[in-house]
């Protein structure tokens, strides 16, 4: 194993263990999206009567929302954990060791990725048990899991950047409403072509989250839609790349200060 991989593995193991040891950290992010999925999929079922609505099952339509909300929580967890490391001086002590910046960032995201993967499996299993049929089949289900993990990684890395930038758990938590707003102004509740209010439709159209949702939704509802998948995976990878770049730059500043 190379030194880099060894460092990543050590930090990722710490991150995973820290998340797993705090049920208060991972139980709400796991259960809350499920509760919301159960309530909203029934509360909004009437929407399936709208002309042009793509399915008769609102649950199938709404499933991607759980993955996205779980990813948002992953962002909060990754950010809060790193902020605590900044706050308690752990990052300062780490700066004295030969650990590389890259391994610190990639390893630190381990808890969020681990939780994101677990969440994705649970959400998908429950959706299948509740009768959701994935038109793209087993391959499509695996692709949903992959995209969900990528989205969790992207938002988790964004959380790292916010933590490094603000250096406080409160700072990370206070950005949650903003991130949640990004989720709200997307095509999560209705397809974009059925959104009536033009400013909302425009916001949903320029919102990358809409495309991540629509990629997962396409696998559930329509099968293999190359355009939706390219856009969904593209934006997820772009989110990871941009967040990683910002976090790496901020880490240098944070380390230099110490």
């Amino acid at each position: 194993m190379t030194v880099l991989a060894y460092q990543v593995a050590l930090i990722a193991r710490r991150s995973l263990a820290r998340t797993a040891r705090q049920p208060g950290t991972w139980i709400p992010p796991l259960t809350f999206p499920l509760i919301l999925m159960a309530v909203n999929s029934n509360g909004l079922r009437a929407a399936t009567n709208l002309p042009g609505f793509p399915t008769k099952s609102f649950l199938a339509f709404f499933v991607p929302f759980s993955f996205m909300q779980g990813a948002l929580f992953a962002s909060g967890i990754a950010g809060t954990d790193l902020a605590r490391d900044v706050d308690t001086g752990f990052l300062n002590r780490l700066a004295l060791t030969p650990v590389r910046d890259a391994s610190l960032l990639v390893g630190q995201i381990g808890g969020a990725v681990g939780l994101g993967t677990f969440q994705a499996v649970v959400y998908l299993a429950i959706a299948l048990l509740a009768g959701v049929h994935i038109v793209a089949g087993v391959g499509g289900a695996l692709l949903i899991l992959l995209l969900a993990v990528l989205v969790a990684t992207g938002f988790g890395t964004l959380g790292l950047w916010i933590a490094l930038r603000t250096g406080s758990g409160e700072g990370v938590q206070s950005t949650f409403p903003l991130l949640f707003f990004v989720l709200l102004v997307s095509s999560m509740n209705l397809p974009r072509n059925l959104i009536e209010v033009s400013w909302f439709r425009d916001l949903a159209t320029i919102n990358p989250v809409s495309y991540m949702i629509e990629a997962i939704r396409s696998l559930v509802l329509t099968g293999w839609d190359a355009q939706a998948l390219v856009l969904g995976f593209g934006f997820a990878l772009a989110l990871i790349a941009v967040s990683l770049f910002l976090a790496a730059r901020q880490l240098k500043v944070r380390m230099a200060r110490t």
Partner: protein
Amino acid sequence: MISVGLGLAYRQITVLFKNPSLFLPPMLFPLMNFMSFAGGLSRLRHVPGFSFHSGYTAFTFVFVLLQSAVFGGVFAGFGIARDFEYGFARRLLVSAPHRSGLILGYAISALTRWTMIAIVLTIVALIGGMQIGGDGVDLFGMYALALIVNVVGLLWACGVAMRFRSVQAGPLMQTPVFLLLFLSPVYVPLTLLRGWIHEVARVNPITLLLEAGRGFIDGRPTQVATAFAVAAALVVVFAVWARTGLRRAERAG
């Protein structure tokens, strides 16, 4: 009791204005929800059987108004729990000649905060083109109902905060309220809900308050007496809950 209440309320409101982080989330969440619902879901008014003359913005405004009211109370509960964690509430218990005044003080501060949220929310809704079918009396009824809901939310959260005396009880304050709210006809009228959620919403007291509020804004008041009776009953029940919570806090020292 009133002087204790006013003194504590003054302190709470001062703390609130000096800490935007305490004031902004309760303000932002209803606004975001309102924008999301009114902007993203307005097509639902075309669902067969959907009948609400004042439009979808007004339909969803009432829900968000009640949501902001009850969560305004719940957020105040966080402040009570924080006061216990930092030991401030214990000093209050020692110094207050009438301890029920503490509940009154927290209630006044919660009400003040929610009043500002309601004003901002209403202005945003009017800018967003909300139509109002009801007259001044109807609107007074709607805001009065929301005000009572704010008191109910505060009393519930106060009872929890005084029993647990820790911010960690936050999820316990929020989750039942959140579930009750969303197990009501949030997006479409009760008649359009199907399955288990219809059965749950039918017996959920929030449904009654929501439908009465929507009746007011639409200019077609419905179940007014029952809604106010239920709201008053909730105040009585949760006042007992908060007072017994205070007694537990007193016993705990």
